């Protein structure tokens, strides 16, 4: 690496790109970096001819045209329910519950199979575009794949006395349950229930019923990712336990102390939507205003990525900075030991807060100590946030999750618990390491674990009982705002599982209880309706998916500042445990969509890595390579963990971030391990684990979120890490040539356009400064530019609609919801860890994350402690003058009359020229049959001849979840974003028929009739799709704003997708 070489690179995605290493330079020019034509040449000429001849011969025999495809049956129901139209999707409202908090959903089912999950547009927490759409989180979206996971457990399993685990039928379990009930009826002192967080009234009622049947039975609740600190803080500060509800729409200034507001927060969707409203106001013609977001954080989160003023600091310093801010607000005393820059930053924050009294809010991370969160509550009181931008949703009191699991472990160890019933969760895996909960389970005579998967806890218990997925069952859950949502089944349980409520009733002597009856019982009481199933009030709740009744927020006043003490600082590194953005606490380990979803900052897939700062990397001698990272050994209190280091610019010095939720031992492994090595769990041999590193090992009850004084050494070993960091990098084409043409004036920054609010108000074109110069100098003075439409030649591509998109980089929070939504909607396969390393990931939509650091030299830029991030969602931009179309030898990618750059799979012969010629790098090639169980292999049905049409090789259960309106692509074809053509066609057809029937004045579609999957999922309304012919459409208006630009417009590709420049609102500028 050249150390002191001046660099002109403003934006960069990875360290190697910034360093312009030769390897990186070589990669930029290639679409598929690890593709090695040399390997083919190694095949001898003779062998090559043999293979070529054989494939010719086979082509002759297996030509699909020679055969009729397989006989298919067409079957309807015996009697069709009223209103059901086969082949027309239906939508039902439901609820997804994660960590005890529900998320409102709308589930699309196709002939009785759920195929897609969206947010519920009726519920205020998920509504976007004024209730026209509903957004949803990545976990909710991906949960549909979990339902169709063939590796979910299918039967109850009992461990017999000789230690052998044996699958049994539900009948056998019910027999056991009968014996249990008979033996324990009326006495329950030795029974303990450990449940995952669940707040639905039906479940609460079944718990109460169980406790009535077995008086004395004790209920414990445990979640590894818990928000207990917040509720403890509210108890102290407000005298009432509860959840903190932030209303960001009313806040001009938002200060976040290490809170992942838009990422991991249960109410992230609403936060993102409210915050984005305060950003979009910049487009107002007269009053260009914007809110301002301060983020003080211990790692780069989505919140930091989109904030205006970021300050990286360790957890300890963050806590001190909170108290310093309290001191500024006239509470407590000043903090000694803070550095000048930290004090200056807090001064600036306080100044801004004072100016916006009553229109500001301070947010604290869930992991901050309750005393510190109490201080945040007190400052919020001072700035007029209470009952305004911050309110409290009251909750019933309960012991904290840590107290609960500690007490239960003690009772188990003391032999006081004879029967342990574990409902969901996986405490044997994720309980604090020092408790030894795993071993304590064995002390109970009977232990029963209800779970979707036969996981670590199931293995430790006597009984494993298979659970029904939430899409298969009736139930209810509480939303963040306190309203209650209803869960309804979309399909019969695929593997005959039971819900937690059902299990409790089976154990208390009601073996035939169904969750529907249970729910009716509960809601009959709640609504005071004796025949609740047919009551109009209940029907409405079922239809809408939620009951709008909300508890009145607690009136907050008189917050007192509690004393906060700090332990003396210790030498060594600070460790921060964070929920993983892919597996959460480990529960989604077997979900391929999530595993392959690149984490926003590191872009790591299938793994967790230790995030370290560049300064620490230098000190430890850690280098950043591509897919090959140095392994660190982290030692804390005598326990050590080996984990690869990943250098993250912007990570505070001395802090190592450890994502939880990896190295699962049992998470489903049999089927998928054939494909992916090992997907979610080990291969079954003792000690083997799935991908990633077991960070729970270091997490003890004393340091659930942050640990101090860890020693770290560089082991000198390396480990492969599948990161998409250096995949598909857009490079301005013909850079050198253009540099010559443009001469001195040339400056980079053509792909990402951004500016500050101050500059933008002065000059609305400020964001496009550099690229505007390029326009008159475009490489190909376009034949399309001023040409008149000839009859019969649709060079305007606008008959009868002109589809286009606007992507707002100012409001994109990088939550990845669009990526999963696209994957679910368009049957996009997962490719596995090894293939990701080979640059073969298939996501049609990716979120490019650009760093921008200050400094004149390479070394200065690298060591910038606080680089800025700009997020740019990138997908096929549907160029009107598309470079891909010009190079396809078989016209497999061509334009349709409405401006879609269509991809015709059945024409594609897989030359990959198009991908090579695409300047945006958005085309993806099916190197293998990724949807089949074992992608490299062909089924050989006849005479050992491979059959390339192999429907049988796709798992039957997985196949149920495909979107039937989208072709499932096979090996050897190119694919890319289609603007969700299936949704376009369906809306066009329905609207046209309505027009024919006289129900509409015009045959074209209205705005929001066609919505792409990404737009639908986006919580911050950053993606807008629509008809550009319609001058009143939102997308047309967005494309007309001054911020709108075309990425790489100097190439004269004329993309239909416009990006909207990012506007920052840093402090100091007057808004």
């Amino acid at each position, binding site marked *: 690496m050249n150390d002191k070489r001046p660099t002109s690179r403003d934006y960069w995605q990875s360290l190697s790109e910034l360093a312009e290493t030769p390897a990186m330079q070589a990669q930029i020019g290639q679409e598929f970096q690890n593709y090695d034509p040399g390997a083919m040449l190694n095949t001898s000429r003779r062998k090559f001819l043999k293979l070529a001849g054989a494939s010719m011969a086979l082509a002759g025999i297996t030509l699909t045209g020679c055969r009729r495809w397989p006989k298919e049956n067409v079957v309807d129901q015996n009697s069709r329910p009223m209103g059901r139209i086969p082949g027309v999707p239906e939508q039902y409202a439901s609820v997804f519950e994660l960590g005890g908090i529900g998320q409102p959903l709308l589930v699309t089912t196709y002939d009785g199979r759920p195929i897609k999950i969206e947010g519920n547009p009726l519920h205020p927490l998920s509504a976007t575009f004024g209730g026209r759409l509903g957004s949803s989180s990545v976990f909710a979206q991906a949960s549909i794949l979990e339902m169709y996971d063939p590796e979910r457990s299918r039967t109850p399993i009992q461990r017999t006395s000789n230690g052998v685990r044996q699958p049994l039928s539900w009948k056998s379990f019910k027999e056991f349950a009968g014996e249990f009930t008979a033996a324990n009826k009326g006495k329950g002192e030795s029974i303990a229930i450990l449940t995952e967080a669940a707040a639905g009234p039906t479940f609460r009622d079944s718990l109460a019923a169980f406790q009535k049947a077995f008086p004395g039975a004790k209920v414990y609740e445990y979640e590894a990712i818990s928000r207990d600190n917040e509720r403890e803080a509210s108890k102290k500060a407000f005298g009432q336990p509860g959840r903190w509800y932030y209303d960001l729409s009313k806040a001009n200034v938002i200060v976040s102390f290490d809170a992942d507001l838009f990422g991991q927060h249960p109410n992230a969707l609403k936060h993102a939507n409210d915050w984005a409203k305060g950003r979009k106001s910049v487009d107002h013609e007269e009053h260009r205003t914007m809110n301002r977001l301060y983020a003080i954080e211990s790692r780069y989160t989505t919140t930091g990525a989109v904030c205006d003023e970021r300050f990286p600091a360790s957890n300890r310093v963050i806590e001190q900075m909170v108290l310093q801010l309290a001191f500024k607000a006239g509470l407590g005393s000043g903090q000694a030991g803070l550095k000048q820059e930290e004090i200056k930053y807090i001064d600036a924050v306080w100044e801004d807060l004072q100016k916006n009294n009553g229109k500001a809010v301070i947010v604290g991370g869930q992991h901050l100590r309750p005393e510190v969160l109490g201080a945040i509550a007190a400052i919020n009181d001072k700035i007029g946030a209470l009952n305004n931008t911050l309110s409290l949703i009251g909750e019933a009191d309960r012991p904290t999750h840590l107290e609960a699991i500690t007490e239960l472990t003690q009772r188990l160890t003391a032999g006081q618990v004879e029967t342990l019933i574990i409902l969901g969760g996986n405490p044997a895996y994720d309980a604090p390491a020092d408790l030894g909960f795993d071993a304590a389970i064995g002390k109970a005579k009977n232990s029963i674990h209800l779970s979707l998967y036969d996981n670590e806890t199931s293995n430790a218990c006597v009984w494993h009982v298979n659970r029904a997925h939430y899409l298969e069952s009736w139930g209810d859950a509480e939303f963040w705002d306190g309203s209650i949502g209803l869960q309804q089944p979309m399909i019969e349980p695929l593997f005959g599982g039971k819900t937690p409520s059902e299990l409790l009733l089976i154990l208390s002597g009601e073996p035939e209880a169904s969750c529907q009856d249970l729910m009716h019982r509960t809601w009959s009481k709640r609504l005071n309706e004796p025949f609740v199933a047919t009551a109009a009030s209940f029907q409405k709740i079922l239809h809408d998916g939620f009951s709008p009744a909300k508890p009145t927020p607690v009136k907050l006043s008189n917050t007192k500042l509690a004393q906060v003490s700090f332990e003396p600082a210790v030498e060594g590194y600070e460790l921060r445990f964070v929920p993983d953005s892919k597996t959460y606490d480990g529960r989604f380990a077997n979900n391929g969509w999530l595993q392959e979803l690149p984490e926003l900052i590191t872009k790591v897939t299938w793994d967790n890595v230790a995030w370290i700062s560049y300064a620490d990397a230098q000190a430890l001698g850690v280098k950043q390579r591509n897919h090959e990272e140095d392994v660190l050994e982290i030692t804390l209190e005598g326990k050590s963990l080996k984990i690869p280091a990943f250098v993250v610019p912007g990570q505070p010095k001395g802090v190592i971030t450890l994502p939880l939720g990896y190295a699962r031992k049992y998470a489903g492994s049999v089927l998928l391990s054939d494909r992916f090595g090992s997907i979610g769990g080990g291969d079954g041999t003792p000690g083997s684990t799935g991908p990633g590193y077991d960070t729970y090992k270091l997490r003890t009850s004393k340091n659930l979120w942050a640990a101090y004084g860890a020693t770290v050494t560089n082991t000198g070993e390396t480990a492969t890490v599948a990161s998409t960091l250096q995949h598909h990098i857009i490079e301005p084409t013909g850079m050198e040539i253009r540099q010559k043409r443009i001469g001195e004036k040339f400056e980079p920054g053509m792909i990402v356009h951004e500016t500050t609010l101050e500059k933008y108000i002065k000059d609305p074109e400020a964001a496009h400064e550099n690229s505007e110069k390029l326009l008159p100098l475009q490489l190909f003075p376009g034949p399309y530019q001023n040409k008149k439409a000839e009859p019969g030649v649709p060079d305007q591509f606008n008959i009868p609609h002109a589809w286009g998109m606007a992507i707002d980089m100012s409001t994109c929070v990088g939550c990845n919801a669009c990526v999963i939504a696209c994957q679910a909607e368009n049957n996009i396969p997962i490719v596995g860890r090894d293939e990701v390393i080979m640059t073969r990931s298939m996501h049609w939509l990716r979120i490019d994350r650009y760093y921008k650091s200050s400094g004149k030299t390479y070394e200065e830029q690298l060591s910038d402690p606080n680089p800025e991030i700009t997020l740019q969602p990138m997908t096929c931009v549907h160029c009107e003058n598309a470079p891909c179309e010009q190079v396809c030898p078989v016209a497999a990618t061509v334009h349709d009359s409405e401006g879609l750059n269509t991809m015709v799979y059945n024409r594609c012969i897989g030359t990959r020229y198009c991908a090579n010629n695409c300047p945006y790098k958005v085309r993806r090639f099916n190197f293998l049959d990724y949807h089949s169980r074992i992608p490299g292999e062909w089924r050989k049905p006849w005479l050992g001849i491979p059959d390339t049409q192999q429907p049988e090789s796709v798992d039957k259960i997985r196949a149920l979840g495909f979107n039937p309106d989208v072709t499932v692509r096979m090996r050897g074809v190119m694919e890319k974003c*289609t603007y969700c053509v299936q949704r376009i066609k369906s809306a066009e057809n329905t609207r046209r028929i309505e027009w024919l029937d006289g129900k509409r004045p015009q045959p074209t579609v209205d705005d929001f009739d066609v919505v792409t999957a990404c737009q639908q999922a986006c919580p911050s309304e950053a993606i807008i799709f629509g008809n550009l012919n319609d001058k009143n459409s939102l997308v047309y208006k967005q494309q007309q704003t001054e911020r709108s630009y075309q990425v790489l417009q100097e190439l004269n590709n004329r993309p239909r997708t416009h990006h909207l420049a990012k506007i920052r609102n840093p402090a100091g500028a007057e808004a």
Partner: protein
Amino acid sequence: MADQLTNKFVFPKTANLLLPLIILLVVFGGIYVQAVVPLGMSPETTDVGYQPVQPIPYSHALHVGQLGLDCRYCHNTVDQAGFAAIPPVQTCMNCHTNIRKDSPKLAPLHQAWDSGQPVKWVTVHDLPDFSYFNHSAHVNKGVSCVECHGRIDHMGEEGVHQAKNLSMSWCLSCHRNPENVLRPRDQVTNLGWKVEDLSLSQPGTESFQVFKDLQAQYNTDQITQPMLGKYLLTKYGIRDHQYMTSCSTCHR
């Protein structure tokens, strides 16, 4: 010595005869392959006339041809969905609880009704999975069932057979010139309808209105398909050639 060694590898004289044979084979074989393979692969050969055995020998000729049931009595969602649903057993049972209930041919039907296991019909018209044909888009715009399915009302107990080859070029022949097949929407399920029948339309129907309009426009009672097609293209908002032949219209 050397001669002997080389002679070993010299072909015998008779081998000279092979040359004309090979030439003949190449020339005629080439012609043969070119003629026979496309013929053998053509959808005409492989698909037209495909007539699988159905679980119940249902006769369209009887129900539609003789009794005059409308197509949409059974295939009732054809104008609302892409997929023309086959009727549920319930629909058959509307009549067959009373009519011919003891007929042995209907035994599978009654068995299905009693057991709750629906009848497994065999798909006759099966497009490749990458083609998305939408029934409602066609039926609602005046394209008759007969255009793709042939005279179903003549197909008897032997079962429905595939009348057209359903190849892409066949699809495109209409997508390029839709005016050749358009008819008034109320005649879509009238499989025997001809353009000459337009003048016989009942007053009050859509066809009658269409006839009146055309009569006024062309000042004649002899309405031909070109006249009708042109008129209906506008009336039904059939999209232009470009849209109709765009790949994304049928492939996704």
